[in-house]
């Protein structure tokens, strides 16, 4: 049932394409479709590799070492996740464009034009900067749940620290790294705003052109199907990361926090690297936003409406996070504990809603909403369901990675001792997987508050959120006015991220 709802976007595409199979096949087979698929896949691969390379070391640095202010760094460096990628792209073009702010600063030195923020390089940089927290958050929550005893045993057995890391620690983290990487890759495939501002021709751009310019729902749906196929291929790849072996602790008892590795002299380079990342992913975009906000502050800011919008964002996002978490627990339990072709199919169908551009997901729900759930159409409930479907995989990834770390023997013991399946979940599985559930719910919340196309189409009329305010102002070309809701968006998202990072720190 849950998965059936989650599969609605994919079902919609199939229904539309079935209208005219010939045209669908023709669209899919155009050489342009293949070219754009390859371009998008290339970008997704580059961004994914970069985010993993940045975020995995960072996750260790902020959980397993004596880095000063580890929790603050973790929060700070997770924050870029709340900056909508199109806002990030805007700020990067403004700052580093051929004649942006940096060029202004360098002008006295005779530099009249800066090279290349546009194209592959810019898209790669900007998307990496605003998606790496996905890997950081998933991997950090997995590290916390690792049993240090395995590593200690290996150390005692005489292996060196690097060797232990490579042969013991890293393999245990594979599902989490895979899950985070998958989320990044799929996000890159679905992104439209950033690639388009940075002038990278991608597959999603193709979808928008067909939908925006010729009002051709058939071609839009056909291209959407290609994206779904690409998603399934990526999922197959991801499933391999968690194929063999158990990831749970073998003996009962609470995981003991490991002793943090002393950084010693390496403290300074570590802080330097964190600062650099914070500067690029946070200080630069926020600085540009503050600059715009400062220019726009002359006009009276309607704080009342910004406040209402913030409340609406949190309300819809919070409810969507809760719904998605419950749905994801159900689906993850099925796939982790009872793996079968059927349960795997359910899980994968759910991912389609995430890899598709928001507008396609929104139209799917418009289609089904007006046909089978008219009384709910354009109510808060409808919006919540749409957001939950769109971002469900964020919750599934985090939650299934954490369920993999719960030893099934504990559950079996509880069942043998007479507890029912629900009681077992509530008293054994749930608490053990709680950090993953919290991480999953928080991710959904963070993405839901910045979601735009589905909110515009499906929210109750005149239900403004921070994202719709940013949209209204940028559409009108008022960057000053847009900067304020964008900044509030970041502020609103900081507390959940702080709580999340606290998970990983042991007093």
């Amino acid at each position, binding site marked *: 049932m849950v998965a059936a709802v989650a599969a609605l976007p994919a079902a919609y595409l199939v229904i539309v394409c079935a209208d005219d199979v010939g045209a669908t096949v023709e669209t899919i087979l155009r050489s342009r479709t293949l070219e754009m698929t390859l371009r998008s896949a290339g970008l997704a691969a580059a961004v994914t590799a970069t985010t993993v390379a940045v975020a995995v070391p960072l996750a260790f640095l902020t959980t397993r070492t004596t880095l000063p202010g580890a929790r603050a760094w973790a929060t700070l460096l997770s924050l870029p996740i709340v900056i909508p990628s199109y806002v990030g792209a805007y700020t990067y073009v403004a700052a580093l464009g*051929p004649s942006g702010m940096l060029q202004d600063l360098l002008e006295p030195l005779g530099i009249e034009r800066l090279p290349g923020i546009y194209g592959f390089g810019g898209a790669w940089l900007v998307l990496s900067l605003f998606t790496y927290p996905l890997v950081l958050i998933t991997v950090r929550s997995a590290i916390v749940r690792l049993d240090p005893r395995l590593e200690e045993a290996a150390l005692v057995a005489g292996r060196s620290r690097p060797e232990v890391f490579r042969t013991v620690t890293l393999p245990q983290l594979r599902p989490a790294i895979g899950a985070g990487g998958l989320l990044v890759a799929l996000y890159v495939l679905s992104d439209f705003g950033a690639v388009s501002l940075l002038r990278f021709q991608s597959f999603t751009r193709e979808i928008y052109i067909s*939908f925006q310019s010729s009002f051709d729902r058939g071609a839009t749906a056909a291209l959407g199907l290609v994206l779904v196929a690409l998603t399934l291929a990526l999922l197959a790849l991801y499933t391999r990361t968690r194929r063999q072996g158990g990831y749970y602790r073998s003996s009962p008892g609470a995981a003991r926090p490991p002793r943090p590795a002393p950084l010693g002299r390496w403290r300074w380079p570590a802080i330097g690297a964190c600062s650099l990342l914070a500067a690029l992913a946070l200080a630069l975009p926020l600085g540009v936003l503050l600059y715009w906000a400062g*220019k726009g502050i002359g006009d009276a800011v309607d704080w009342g409406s910004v406040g209402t919008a913030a409340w609406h964002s949190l309300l819809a996002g*919070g409810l969507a996070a809760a719904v998605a978490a419950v749905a994801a627990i159900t689906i993850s339990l099925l796939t982790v504990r009872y793996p079968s072709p059927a349960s795997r199919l359910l899980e994968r169908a759910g991912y389609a809603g995430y890899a598709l551009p928001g507008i396609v997901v929104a139209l799917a729900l418009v289609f089904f909403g007006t046909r089978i759930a008219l009384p709910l159409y354009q109510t808060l409930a409808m919006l919540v369901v749409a957001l939950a479907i769109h971002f469900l995989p964020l919750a599934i990834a985090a939650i299934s990675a954490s369920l993999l770390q719960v030893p099934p023997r504990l559950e079996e013991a509880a069942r043998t001792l007479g507890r029912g399946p629900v009681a077992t979940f509530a008293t054994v599985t749930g608490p053990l997987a709680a950090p993953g559930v919290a991480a999953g719910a928080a991710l959904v919340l963070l993405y839901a508050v910045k979601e735009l196309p589905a909110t515009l*189409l499906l929210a109750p009329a005149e239900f403004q959120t921070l994202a719709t305010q940013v949209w*209204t102002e940028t559409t009108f*070309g008022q960057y000053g006015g847009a900067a304020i809701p964008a900044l509030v968006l970041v502020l609103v998202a900081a507390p959940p991220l702080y709580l999340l990072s606290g998970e990983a720190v042991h007093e």
Partner: protein
Amino acid sequence: MPWPQTLIAAILAALLAAAGAGCGEEGESGAGDPDAPSGAEGITVYSGRIPPEIGPLIDLYEQRSGKDIEVRFGETAALAAQIVEEGENSPADVFFAQDAGALGAIEAEGRFEQLPAATLERVPARFRSRAGEWVGTSGRARVIAYGEDVDPDDLPDSVLDLTGEEWQGRVGWAPINGSFQAFITAMRLTEGEDVARDFVEGMLANGVQPYENNIAIRDAIAAGEIDVGLINHYYVAQAKAEDPDYPVEIHFPPNDLGSMVNVAGAGVLAGSDQVGEAEAFVDFLLSREAQEFFAGSTEEYPLIDGVAPDRSLIPLDEIPHPALDLSRIDDLEGTLELLQSSGAL
């Protein structure tokens, strides 16, 4: 660690309670509001125009008529797609779109009601649907915007001249943008396929810079990234409202489609249960007050007789207008094919 569940439960409970309270409030205020018209539910407008471009008008109409209007804001193309997907069950009574192409697409789907002749006849025939299914409410001209480094005397009389060597690498356009595509479609219809193809290919060979939309082009001109760009006329006025010294000006090329006029417009949706109300609202958009609002606040061209455009603009009649049927510029497939095969998209 017991806190996560407790915390999640608490947050959930709070959210649900608040959501419940919110619904309650709305219900009460609706029932208790003495100004609310009894029995008559207001109409729903799907608006591709954003609040600053229409909000004051909605307020004025609500005051006047005592009727409530619900507005759903969104991007014109997305709202058009939404109306098509909603089919007969669409809650929308009026579609207020930013360009004639989207209106034409809804017309082609057979989703509009015929508008009353009295409403249609308020605007010249070239600014409304031939079948009388939608009507233009304000006009927007294509212009050449230019920056500080350009001598106005050097600007071309025809947009076709921008393929000349002196403009190498200095021009910006937005091939993905609806207004631009409508402009190319119009060029194909009035000047012929060959001229349009030569223009697009010539521009590409001349190193034209592609941007995302009109605003991005305008900002790039202001920043000195490019010297001139093809945009809609009112974007510059909007920037000047925020910053009077904004360093971009507009030029109406006197000879051809460089200043083609497209419209924002509205129609009443088939299946509306309040056709009369919806028609009254569309008619209101063509009232003197509404037209003066468009002319003053968004600096668009008013379309009815007796309301003058902003003084910085050349009069609508002086913009050359070849026999161009705005109903036909929804035929975008050929334009897309042209833009894609030439490498512009």
